[in-house]
């Protein structure tokens, strides 16, 4: 974005006492020229950048970061500001201004290879920095060889020379500008495409474990957040089945450490099936859409659950991993190349193991073995009948046509109705104080049994007036027995409707012959069912952004890792003297050491060594002393 200056300007400035007369311009032309000059100036570029920054502040403060808009904030910011036509035109004007204002540099860069800048004015070689005059009695042949060897391009025209090197530095800024232009074009194109629905930026895929879908959702209105009322369905040419969702929490916390989704993707056209995993930091490409793990949800319904399966090596007994699965879904076992498929959760149900190499053919199969598993039961006394009886129901509310009732308020035949939830399965049980009656009742659950041991009431309680089902009126001594072990696992004294809880271990009675399967698989516990929430995008302009960034990186490397230097030379045949000027870009001072190196090379090339007169940047004393020493040494 700067102008080239190699010292000529200094001569011009010194010699030009008046500009060459130019044809007079009309006021309109002058005005237009001024406007054009202003538009293409750096100031205008910076002004436009300031406006863009101000718009960004507005878009953020008024929309994206404003609590006024709730979940709609960022979609609104995009719709109202960042994807709006007026922002498009603002960026477009900046793009034009940028291209035009950088055009002189671009033009210069394009012509740098062919640049010939011969300086024939002797005054140019008398300027203070980077200048030297060398006596070359033997002629210019060796000098030409040195120049060809040391510089990228060397030109000669009569008695004038021009050579330069480090050309990449001069091209670098143009390459950077090109990268910026590519990014700006991509940004502009993206706005147009998004406004016309050619970009999918807020797609969603919601499904629970075991579910198969061949559609995704996209917002109907782009200025609103994705919500149940702002969705439209889009079909995709794949059947996508959620085999497993995996959530790993930091132990003893509710904070997730890792979450991922295992998908089975079936191409509807070819029938090809593949299994792939994506997690919170790794996306998955399916067709022309990119799927990302955006979030997940837990289904809090005891009726919907998965089961944890413990997979062990049959020989060593060593655990490979514990993984959750549901009937018919294939899940990955830990990080191994093992995929488990089960038909059920009960001992004896079949399982199959696949590898990614054999997704259709199991390489091992067997039956679930029975292992102890931990469970929890919660319960409370729902209702108390002091003198339990059964009679014909007045209404047909239940199949038996009978209903329980209490014949009196005196505890002659006490019974309680217990509501419980054992290991996720709810139920109710009648429990009697009478041991014989209790023994005659059906089992409460396959895993636990309740026993009513006693009923406690205040010493001064009057049976006639006592409301047994009033909280605080009576306390029920309940015990819970683990049916698989016969142990009493909990003994509670509970008020009516007061919750009790017991943890226990279920030891299955069924034994399964594992045969010669190389693995042992057992159902361990029930776990909640999860749903996965994937964001789905299609961003066709992204490669152009990447291209732009790559170009900028290349341009930056060229600009900052190389150094442009030009050498101008003028040969005086009469005195056999070569005047040289060594000039870097932007009229900057040459590096003294670099300049000295060059002069030494040129001196060495002049055989016999010529007397030299040199003046260079900054340290003139050191330089002349060094040149003298050199000459003396050769003499």
């Amino acid at each position: 974005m700067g102008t080239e200056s190699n010292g000529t300007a200094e001569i011009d400035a010194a010699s030009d006492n008046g500009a060459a007369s130019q044809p007079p311009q009309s006021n309109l032309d002058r005005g237009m020229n001024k406007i054009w000059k202003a538009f293409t100036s750096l100031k205008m570029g910076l002004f436009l950048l300031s406006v863009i920054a101000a718009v960004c502040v507005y878009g953020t403060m008024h929309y994206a970061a404003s609590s006024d808009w709730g979940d709609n904030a960022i979609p609104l910011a995009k719709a109202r500001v960042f994807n709006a036509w007026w922002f498009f035109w603002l960026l477009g004007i900046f793009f034009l201004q940028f291209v035009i204002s950088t055009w002189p540099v671009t033009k210069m860069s394009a012509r740098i290879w062919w640049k010939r800048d011969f300086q024939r004015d002797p005054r140019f070689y008398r300027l203070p920095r980077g200048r030297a005059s060398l006596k070359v009695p033997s002629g210019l042949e060796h000098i030409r060889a040195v120049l060809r060897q040391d510089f990228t391009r060397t030109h000669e025209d009569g008695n004038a020379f021009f050579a330069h090197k480090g050309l990449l530095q001069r091209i670098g800024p143009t390459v950077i500008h090109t990268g910026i232009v590519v990014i700006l074009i991509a940004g502009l194109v993206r706005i147009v495409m998004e406004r016309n629905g050619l970009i999918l930026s807020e797609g969603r895929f919601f499904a629970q474990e075991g579910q198969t879908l061949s559609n995704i959702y996209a917002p109907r209105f782009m200025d609103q957040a994705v919500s149940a009322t702002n969705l439209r369905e889009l079909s995709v040419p794949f059947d996508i089945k959620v085999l497993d969702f995996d959530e790993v929490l930091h132990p003893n916390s509710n904070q997730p450490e890792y979450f991922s989704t295992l998908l089975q993707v079936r191409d509807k056209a070819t029938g090809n099936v593949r299994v792939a995993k994506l997690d919170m930091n790794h996306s998955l490409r399916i067709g022309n859409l990119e799927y990302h793990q955006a979030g997940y949800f837990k289904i809090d319904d005891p009726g919907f659950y998965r089961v944890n399966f413990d997979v062990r090596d049959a020989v060593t007994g060593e655990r490979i991993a514990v993984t959750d699965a549901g009937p018919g879904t294939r899940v990955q076992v830990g990080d191994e190349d093992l995929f488990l498929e089960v038909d059920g959760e009960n001992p004896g149900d079949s399982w199959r193991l696949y590898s990614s190499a054999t997704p259709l053919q199991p390489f091992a199969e067997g039956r679930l073995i029975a292992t102890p598993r931990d469970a929890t039961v919660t319960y409370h006394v729902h209702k108390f009948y002091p003198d339990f009886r059964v009679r014909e129901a007045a209404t047909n509310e239940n199949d038996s046509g009978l209903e329980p009732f209490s014949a009196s308020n005196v505890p002659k035949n006490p019974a309680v109705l217990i509501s419980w939830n054992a290991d996720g399965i709810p139920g109710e049980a009648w429990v009697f104080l009478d041991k014989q009656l209790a023994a005659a009742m059906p089992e409460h659950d396959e895993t636990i049994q309740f026993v009513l041991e006693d009923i406690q009431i205040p010493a001064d309680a009057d049976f006639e007036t006592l409301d047994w089902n009033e909280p605080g009126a009576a306390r029920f001594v309940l015990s819970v027995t683990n049916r698989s072990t016969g142990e009493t696992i909990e003994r509670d004294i509970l008020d009516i409707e007061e919750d009790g809880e017991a943890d226990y271990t279920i030891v299955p009675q069924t034994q399964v012959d594992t045969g010669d399967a190389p693995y042992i698989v057992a159902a361990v516990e029930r776990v909640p069912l999860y749903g996965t929430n994937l964001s789905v995008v299609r961003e066709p302009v992204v490669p152009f952004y990447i291209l732009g960034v790559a170009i900028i990186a290349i341009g930056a490397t060229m600009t900052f890792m190389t150094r442009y230097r030009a050498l101008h030379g003028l040969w005086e045949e009469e005195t056999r003297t070569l005047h040289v000027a060594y000039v870097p870009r932007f009229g900057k001072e040459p590096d003294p050491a670099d300049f000295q190196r060059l002069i030494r090379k040129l001196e060495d090339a002049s055989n016999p060594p010529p007397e030299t007169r040199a003046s260079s940047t900054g340290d003139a004393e050191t330089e002349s002393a060094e040149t003298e020493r050199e000459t003396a040494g050769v003499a």
Partner: protein
Amino acid sequence: MKTQSSMTLTFGADMKTSILLTTLISAVLLFAAPAASRAATGGALSDDDSSRLSTIPHSPEFEEALREAGAHRLAVRHEGWNETLPSWARLKIYELTGRTEIKGQDPIFTVLSIIYEPSRWSRAKFLPIEHPRIAEIMGLEGKWVSPLDIVENPKFMDLQAEYDAAKLDAEEYADLIDLLRAVMQAKKLGVERDGVFESVSTRQGKPALDPSTISRAARYDNDLAGLQAREKLLGAKVKESKPFRKATEMLFHRVGLILDLPEQFTIIPDPGATDGSWIAAPRELGSRFRDQASASPAAATIENVALKSGFAGPTPLELAAADLDEAFALAFLDDDPSGLDNAIDEFLTFAAKSRAYPSDTYRNLLNFYVFSHPYKIAALLYGIAAALFGLFAFFKAAPWRIAGTTVLIVGFLVQTAAMGLRFYLSGHVPVSNMFESITFTAWAALGVGLVIELVKRQGIFGLATACAGMLALIGANMMPLHDTRLHPLRAVLNSIWLNIHVTMMLISYGVFMISAVFAAIYLIKKLAGREALFGGKPLMTLDQTEEFAYRLVQLGWPLLTVGIMLGAVWADTAWGRYWGWDPKETWALITWIVYTIYLHSRMVMGWKGWVSALACLIGFLMVMVTWLGVSYLPWFAGGLHTYASPTV
């Protein structure tokens, strides 16, 4: 001559003022910094009220015995992280009291005492009442109360009722705000209203809001003024009751925590767990199996009992934990800690066999890291270095500068060691929360400034760097204890890009921080109309000061550029898009634009002086908004960079 003399006198007075100011500021920084951070992170309960303190159980001999028995070597699992018993105890005391210790006691003693002899604490006044209304309702006096003062207070239900009413107000207010927002959105977005919001004709014929919002808004549009009046009234009430609600919630939480402490004292990895969770010592296990052991002399050792107990029986570690639990209980019951050392040793012997139990090295280093307060030491050293550089600025004597540089290097090494230790203990580059972000940025700024100071040896770099580092670390040390503790990494941060993108951004912030200090020095000098703020000859000319601010921005800008680009790459892998106009992203872009304008205007257009310095400061203001403002300023809400719940 007279004029010159008076000028000299004036200058002399200024010099004296400068000396006084320098001394005063240094003293304040040196002594107030640790005090401020101590106050912020807690500090001990003051001994101001002897009658209150007399209610608190105290036993220095027991504390000493606990230390000697090696209780500090135990580990406790806390919120997904392995703490040592001392660090966990300190966190719990902080949670209970807002201070890091009670009555100068060792937190281990305090917490174990609350767990194992809760009755002694039931009347101990250690729970703070943080709102006068609570004391008023419950008829309590003083700031500190005991658990029984709360739970047995006849007015407890009154407190609960008032809290519930305030909470209901807050919920109603939240609903009201939500509703009002819907109405205002409908209005702002240009939804046409024909009496009600039923005709929607916004741009391109699409409704700008979903139908449910519009219908909600429609119901209330006719009474918008009434709605706004209600919002104003309720808003004032809710705002007024907020401190009360917060204080009451905190009080309830603290009372609940006392009851919950035994459950939270999770000291062993659960042998049956598949998710790596830890459990508290199984209390009943110890005596039950000891009974078995005594019945069968052959199975007298814990291991034998465990082996004989079958498939689902307790592991040796569980039994050792149960024994340890019993030993603690007996020690507190009998006030005799003599058996604790054996119980702890035995427990740790079994614990060492568990792969899930943190190693000795980890526990020792964690204790060292937590209790050596390295960031406070570093802040103090930076303060001393700043004072020494200040003296150099005044006296221009090289020994002051050398001393300042030396202290700065020592401070930097202390901070580097602290960060290295934190990296080792946490397993990730310490840039994952605000505390780590501030300390890392300070460290980057210190590194850059120190290198320049060592090369240039002008003192001013050391002064600027030391001041910036000290202020940043004081800020970090003043953060609540829970924000400074080691913590597990959030899932979305569990990525290599955290190390690359965030460190790159924070290093650039550090460089910009130093450049802003230079720009500020330039502007102060300019406003004061003096080349030197202290003494006669300046450490650096005005132009050089501004030039260095510019040079540092030249260094920081490419880092910021690359940092933003890498952030875009991470955003693509994590969120599925490179750029989403999230507030943090947009402000990073704004920062980048401001510095781009600054660099081009100075480099190509030659804008120097106060305009340039001011632009540099504006740039840093943008950095502060991007870095801290988006997270903390009230005008900013939401955004993906807040790392809210992963559940959508």
